[in-house]
């Protein structure tokens, strides 16, 4: 009986995952048509297929430029960033056995933010900015590791505190960079970059994001059953033969790489890694084998929708960080309220 229920549940979860993937694909196609210039989804498909299948009505240079040159890299970047952040968030929540943990907790975002702002201040372009953000994001993780090693490498609370300390340190450095930046040239660029945006998305940036993100995401997905065991507690995990400390640092490194890559190409985008795993948990339950892919698919859809709002509401784009916070905070409050109610009912 239990086996039958388990198979039925897994079938249901698989169906939910396929449905999520279909929804993501539909949102992506719709997103390619949404913006200052509206293009119907059918026409979007014809434009995308035009190099292979010539449509009855020829594709105009304007249509090609808007859909393929401007929007396509942006849509791909939004999906990758959203999926990566949600996946990182879900992994960290399982790792720390705490649903209030997000990618920002390890200090990586602050480190990457400092790297990016420093690059802008020094006038480093494109690759230099991405490289600096990435390098400082990972150096933040190294600092957290060193800090935790000195105190207690196996204590989760120490890890969180180390993350807070490192975040505070890099936050101060970001403020210092902003203070010294020229107010008419560099400062607006820094502020806009920190608020997060996919406005500068292009093929190069998509590749720079996909390069580290895809293998790291694959790594997290491959380890998802181990996260299940880790979330049971350190003692149980050790009893089942897992190298807890090593696995924890591997998971932290993978999530740090994802977050660094995202911050490097599009600035700080908060709340996605915190809110989306909660939504996914409501849809598919707490099993990380399903929760991780569900979070990734839901994260891609969520950030894509937010970006659609960002670029459609006005000619002057609303930074993503503002929108994700405005949407994420009330959503998170509602989720917490519902969780509390469920606990009280139970």
């Amino acid at each position: 009986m239990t086996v039958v229920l388990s198979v039925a549940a897994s079938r249901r979860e698989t169906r939910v995952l396929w449905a999520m993937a279909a929804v993501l694909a539909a949102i992506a196609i719709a997103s390619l048509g949404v913006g200052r210039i509206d293009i119907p989804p059918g026409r979007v498909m014809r434009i995308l297929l035009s190099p292979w299948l010539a449509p009855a009505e020829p594709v105009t240079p304007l249509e090609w430029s808007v859909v393929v040159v401007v929007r396509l890299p942006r849509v791909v970047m939004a999906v990758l960033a959203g999926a990566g952040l949600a996946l990182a968030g879900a992994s960290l929540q399982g790792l720390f056995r705490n649903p209030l943990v997000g990618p920002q907790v390890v200090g990586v975002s602050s480190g990457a933010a400092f790297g990016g702002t420093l690059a802008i201040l020094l006038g480093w372009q494109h690759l230099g900015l991405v490289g600096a953000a990435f390098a400082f994001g990972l150096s933040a993780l190294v600092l957290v590791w060193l800090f935790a090693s000195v105190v207690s490498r196996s204590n989760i609370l120490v890890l969180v505190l180390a993350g807070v300390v490192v975040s505070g340190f890099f936050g101060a450095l970001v403020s210092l960079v902003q203070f010294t930046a020229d107010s008419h040239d560099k400062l607006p660029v820094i502020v806009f970059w920190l608020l997060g945006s996919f406005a500068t998305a292009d093929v190069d940036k998509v590749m720079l994001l996909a390069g580290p993100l895809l293998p790291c995401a694959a790594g997290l997905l491959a380890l998802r059953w181990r996260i299940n065991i880790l979330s049971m507690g350190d003692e149980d995990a050790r009893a089942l033969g897992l190298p807890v400390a090593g696995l924890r640092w591997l998971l932290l490194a993978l999530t740090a790489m994802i977050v660094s890559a995202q911050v490097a190409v599009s600035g700080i985008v908060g709340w996605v890694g915190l809110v989306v795993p909660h939504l996914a948990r409501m849809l598919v339950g707490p099993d990380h084998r399903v929760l991780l892919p569900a979070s990734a698919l839901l994260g891609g859809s969520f950030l894509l929708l937010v970006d659609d709002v960002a670029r459609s509401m006005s000619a002057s784009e609303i930074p993503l960080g503002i929108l994700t916070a405005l949407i994420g905070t009330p959503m998170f409050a509602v989720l917490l309220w519902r969780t509390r109610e469920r606990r009280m009912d139970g």
Partner: protein
Amino acid sequence: MPQLRRSATLVLTFCALAAPLRAEIAVTDLLGRQVTLSEPADRIVLGEGRHLTVLGLLHEDPVALVAGWRLDKALDEPTQQAYRARFPAMDAIRPVGSGNRDLSAESVIALQPDLLVLSLMDRGDPGMDRARDQIESAGIPVVYVDFFAHPLENSIPSLKILGALTGAQDKADEFAEFYDTHLSRITERLADPSIQRPRVFLHAHASPQGCCPTVGSGVFDDFITTAGGTNIAAEVVPGVQGTVSLEYLIGADPDVYLATGGTHMAGRGGLVLGSGVDAEQARASFKTLLAAPGLSSLPAVEQGRASGIWHLFNDTPAHIALIEHLALSFHPELFADLDPEATLAQIDRQFLPVSVPGTWWVRAGE
């Protein structure tokens, strides 16, 4: 002893009689504040370092007048080098603060200047207002000028204010006459309401990666409007500057694409123009910019209606040459007789103590 007393009485009497004869210099600055000096200022602190070249329009040796300056909005590096080569004393100018709207009242007071020159952009900032109050309470006069926020409206009045306060009124009047002659030639011809004004998009600090910082009211909007164009971003950018999406730009389909750049953009792979930049480097950077995804497909770019201009025209009365360049770009038939290069050369020759070579604008297809 009585003779000494008699001499002292004579000296004091003479001083008392002569005091009213020595004319005070009184001006009203751009905030409507009365600024009074007992004699022309020869020890000045500049709130903006790049206003050294404005003083250069009035004085043979502007560096000799400057005791201190704020490092924010400094001169660009090639201009600094050119001025330093001519005036080695430039190294003695003391910094009095840096960063965003930062001014050290203590540093200014320690220099004991005759005058502190602030920009209209400094007004209303609590930190700057507090520093100004402290400096004024130490007996140092503060004057507000503007060559940036509303350049057409304020540049010549500001130049005349500085001319009066530094004993160079004649030179200020001479430049004002030169400026007005060149400006009226443009405004008179554009007075005809039937003239079609091209829709212009200005891409500020232009680089292939960052699209698109632009301008709303003031500064370049004033230049574009005066030269007979319409700044399309003024409708969507509420303040002086803002950012619009590449998608907006493609949808707006401007008649003219105008990009600003400078030596500060070299590190960002953007449009490189200005002091110390040769024409080949400027053309190459402009070509790279116009080949950027999205920009390359703009009809204005495809049809050669694209131009690059030096960004730092935004804080000098030499912007009159830029207005001529824009008028010629927007209305080539109407302004076929204009020669903006000659105007710049004349400013260099007739008014400025240091000639800084460079490339100030570039056109598509050049």
